[in-house]
């Protein structure tokens, strides 16, 4: 072979190598897309930009919940060498063993990435560190946003924030480990609106996860969208006023605007400052609150079922009339109570016999024993059990024994027993006399303060209610959930309400059960209740609405161990009604003595609150 022909052998080799390379490149770059996706994962790192959480204002626009800056001390463990550890620990007021432990943990997590070494620096430490931190190049301060509450109460209503759990991380992809979310109250129920949309900054990272700059010129970055601001229906002034009135007492207040279902205030006592459960203090304070025997964390207004006592008579009267076993003119005698065989339901001294209207005003127990028995023993129904089932359906239509659907978490249904319960208690053929105590709201019946306030709304509206809610509108577009504007009618016809309302209108005027508590110039329609309590003194209960026609406020007040309804619950309720209806909140009360007495009343002993406060720390 001519040796010059060997050139073509070599050129053929070039072509072969070229072909192999191009085919290989085609597989690497076009066919096998995994490299492309791996590249996305390798070279970039998503940095979350947290949006500002929505604020919450009261019905008049007063700020209740907002955001504030908090400061974390961060460390890049790899760089944390050759620094004066003792001096830094001294600045941080931290002992060196604890410091070393945290540094080791951070180093173990990732020596090249910043980790928190001191969470939530107090402000004085923050300012001090600003001056000395230049000596510690591995350390820097990162600013985060925390929640602040403009009110030192209303904790159950507003709720608090906490870190997301692992389970929540799985359920909602929005969250990442270390994120916070609303745990209770409004913070929880409006979490999706308040949290907003996270922004994303994609940065280029090298093989050590060290940031090199922005990825693809910021093409994939997105801006965060702040959470929706929420306009609450709460009247902050009224809320604070209610909390003052209920101070040193155990109980709750729920006030609702009947014409809309908007909740004006929800007061629980004992209460706590929601700011106690923000930031670094949270763990310690939460434990103290949890262990407190008076259960300050317990949301009584929504969760505690109380026997409604005599306030329940209004409902009994309405059901009786609708069922046709009672007319406004029906009169029943009362000789110091209701007697039937061995059973006696006691009553206080009043004229006898009474008609329906006066039975409300005077709160006659015997009258309602007759009424309830006539409801249950109605020949219309084949048995007492059937009549009872019908009766519970009435109650459900009043929002009793069912959830009201309020826009707050952890609501209780209250207690309305099923017939089977009584079968177990009294045998298969139980009779109306077995459950006679329920006629006056005692025994096997329990309503939450919210349900009782809602009951007052229904009577004030003459037959309907709106789902109680604490939020008026969401966001800049003022979105109102449609469920809030839907009327729910109860099973009692409008025409039957007049007599009951007439009876209630006389309760707070002399001759009524709370005659001394009335407010001059305001027609308050109310009903007192005194709920027997196996654990101690009776609970003082009061439901009311005012004014009589087109009421603007409906309220329920419960003071545990407060005695008669007229003793504490009625004055407190009426003072709140007075304050709400007077457009100028600065005007003095028409009943200064009553106001003074309520403010000062202490039903829990002097040291109790102090001892609680001693356990809490700022």
């Amino acid at each position, binding site marked *: 072979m001519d*040796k*010059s022909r*060997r*050139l073509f*052998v*070599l*050129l053929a*080799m*070039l*072509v072969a*190598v*070229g072909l*192999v*390379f*191009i085919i*290989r*490149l*085609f597989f*690497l*770059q*076009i066919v*096998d*897309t*995994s*490299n*492309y996706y*791996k*590249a*996305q994962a*390798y*070279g*970039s790192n998503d940095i979350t930009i947290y949006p500002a959480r929505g604020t919450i204002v009261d019905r008049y626009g007063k700020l209740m919940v907002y955001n504030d800056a908090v400061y974390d001390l961060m460390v890049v463990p790899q760089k944390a060498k050759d620094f004066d550890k003792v001096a830094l620990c001294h600045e941080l007021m931290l002992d060196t063993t604890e410091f070393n432990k945290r540094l080791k943990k951070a180093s173990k997590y990732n020596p090249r990435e910043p980790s928190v070494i001191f969470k939530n620096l107090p402000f004085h430490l923050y300012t001090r560190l600003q001056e000395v931190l230049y000596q510690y190049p591995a350390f820097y301060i990162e600013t985060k946003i925390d929640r602040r509450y403009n009110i030192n109460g209303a904790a159950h209503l507003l709720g608090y924030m906490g870190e997301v759990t692992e389970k929540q991380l799985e359920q909602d992809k929005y969250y990442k480990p270390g994120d916070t979310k609303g745990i209770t109250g409004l913070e929880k129920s409006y979490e999706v609106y308040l949290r907003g949309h996270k922004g994303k900054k994609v940065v*280029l*990272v*090298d*093989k050590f996860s060290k940031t*090199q*700059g*922005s*990825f*693809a*010129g910021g093409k994939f970055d997105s801006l965060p969208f702040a959470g929706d601001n929420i306009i609450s229906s709460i009247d902050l002034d009224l809320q604070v006023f209610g909390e003052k009135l209920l101070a040193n007492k155990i109980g709750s207040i729920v006030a609702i605007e009947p014409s809309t279902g908007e909740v004006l205030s929800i007061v629980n006592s004992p209460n706590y400052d929601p700011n106690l459960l923000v930031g670094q203090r949270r763990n310690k304070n939460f434990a103290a609150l949890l262990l407190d025997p008076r259960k300050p964390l317990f949301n009584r207004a929504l969760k505690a079922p109380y026997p409604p006592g005599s306030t329940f008579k209004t409902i009994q009267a309405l059901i009786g009339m609708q069922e046709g076993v009672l007319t406004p003119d029906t009169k029943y005698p009362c000789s110091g109570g209701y007697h039937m065989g061995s059973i006696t339901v006691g009553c206080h001294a009043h004229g006898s016999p009474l008609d329906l209207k006066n039975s409300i005003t005077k709160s006659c127990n015997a009258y309602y024993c007759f009424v309830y028995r006539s409801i249950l023993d109605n020949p219309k129904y084949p048995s007492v059990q059937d009549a009872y089932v019908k009766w519970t359906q009435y109650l459900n239509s009043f929002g009793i024994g069912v959830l009201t659907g309020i826009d707050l978490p952890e609501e209780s249904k209250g207690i309305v027993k099923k017939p089977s319960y009584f079968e177990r208690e009294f045998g298969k053929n139980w009779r109306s006399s077995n459950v006679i105590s329920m006629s006056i709201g005692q025994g096997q019946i329990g309503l939450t303060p919210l349900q009782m306030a809602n009951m007052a709304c229904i009577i004030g509206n003459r037959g309907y209610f709106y789902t109680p809610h604490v939020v008026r509108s969401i966001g800049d577009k003022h979105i109102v959930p449609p469920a809030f504007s839907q009327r729910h009618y109860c099973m009692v016809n409008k025409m039957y309400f007049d007599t009951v309302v007439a009876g209630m209108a006389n309760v707070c005027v002399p001759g009524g059960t709370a005659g001394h508590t009335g407010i001059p110039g305001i027609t308050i329609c109310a009903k007192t209740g005194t709920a027997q309590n196996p654990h101690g003194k009776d609970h003082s209960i009061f439901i009311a609405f005012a004014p009589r026609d087109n009421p603007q406020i409906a309220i329920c007040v419960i003071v545990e161990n407060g005695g008669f309804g007229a003793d504490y619950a009625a004055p407190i309720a009426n003072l709140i009604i007075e304050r709400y209806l007077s457009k100028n909140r600065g005007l003095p009360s028409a009943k200064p003595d009553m106001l003074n007495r309520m403010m000062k009343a202490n039903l829990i002993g002097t040291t109790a609150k102090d001892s609680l406060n001693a356990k809490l720390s700022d």
Partner: protein
Amino acid sequence: MEEKLHIDWLTVILYILIVLFGAINIYSANSGVDEALRLDFSKEYGKQVLFIGVSAIIVFLILLTDYKFFNFSAYGIYVVIIGLLMVLLATGSFNKGAQAWFKIGSFKLQPSEFAKYATALALSKFLGTFDIKFEGRRNIMIALGIIGFPMLLTLLQNDTGSALVFTCFILVLFREGLSGWWLVLVMYMVTLFVLTILLPSISIIISLAVLSALVVYLARKKQQLFWLAIIVFVSSSVYILSLDYVFARILKPHQQQRILVTLNQDVDEYYVKKSKSFSIFKFKKAEVTDKKESKRDYSYNVRQSKISIGAGRWLGNGFNNGTQTKAKLVPEQHTDFIFCTVGEEYGFLGSTLFVLVYLLLIGRIFYLAERQKNEFSRVFGYSTASILFFHFFINIGMAIGLLPVIGIPLPFMSYGGSSLISFSMLLFTFLKLDANRVNEISRLY
């Protein structure tokens, strides 16, 4: 009489294109992410621009030099470079560990890069000497010695990659009369080597035995073929077993790793496989004394390189926009792995075009070499093309995961003064010789 410079402008244009493209890619791999476009001479891309300038000056000087100078001083240059390599080796042994460069200020001069140039000159001179052909035992031994000596010195410097480059002269020798069977033999040996790593030695030997038996049976009437089959079988078996020995006992752990990684083999699995099957050597995993070494992941380079190139898709991310490149995820990206930048930023179309342009350059040099009228120029031309081809083949093959990681630069593209200058010298010395060919012809008429 006015002498026109009959330089091959196509080669020059291809050269300029590749060098400038190289500088652009070094800039991409080397500059910071949000850095403004500017020339910073403290950074590698800035230095590369300086090296391009130096190369231009050297190229200019070469073109001015009389063509006879190269023929005349070929052995001299060879001796000087060999001397430099030996000095390095001597000082290196004093300093514990090999050193492959001389330090001149802040620049490092790597004589092994120039050794290829010197070897090409010396080989051309030897084979180009009147009356000497690549025939006869003595001439063959001298030619092999010219190639083998610098190769051995580079190997002793622990620069295995650069030493391997000298095997490319087999292509030159092939052109000059080496039997084509040698090329076949090399390919056969490489194939056996790969098979030895992929399969248990005993199964390869048994397969070979079966094949040989078949050949022996079919060629039972031809005694020559019978003996050939026996010889091939015996020598292959010895080769396979000695490969096992070399791999298990002589190669360093990182070299074993690099080879295994290319063949998608896990080191531990490999040893399990090898220790189970028949072998005269006990396979024990080499004890790694260096802790850093034991943690090093040799698949990392290739993996990152493939991801980087794969991320380019059809058109790539565009100049200075490769995310893997800018994140500096591929080690040595501005030097040996410069092709990753091409792959990521210019995509499949860009890479293919680049491969084609590069092969066009090499093919052009082969073509120019063949048209030389004297042996010196022809051998030198073939040497130039072969060296460039070998570098191109190994470097890109490694970047796209077809070949083991062997750290040699991509000529004209990779960062590095010694390599750019030595390859430029190589190319333009040949172009000068080629230009002279035309002059020589014109003088004849």
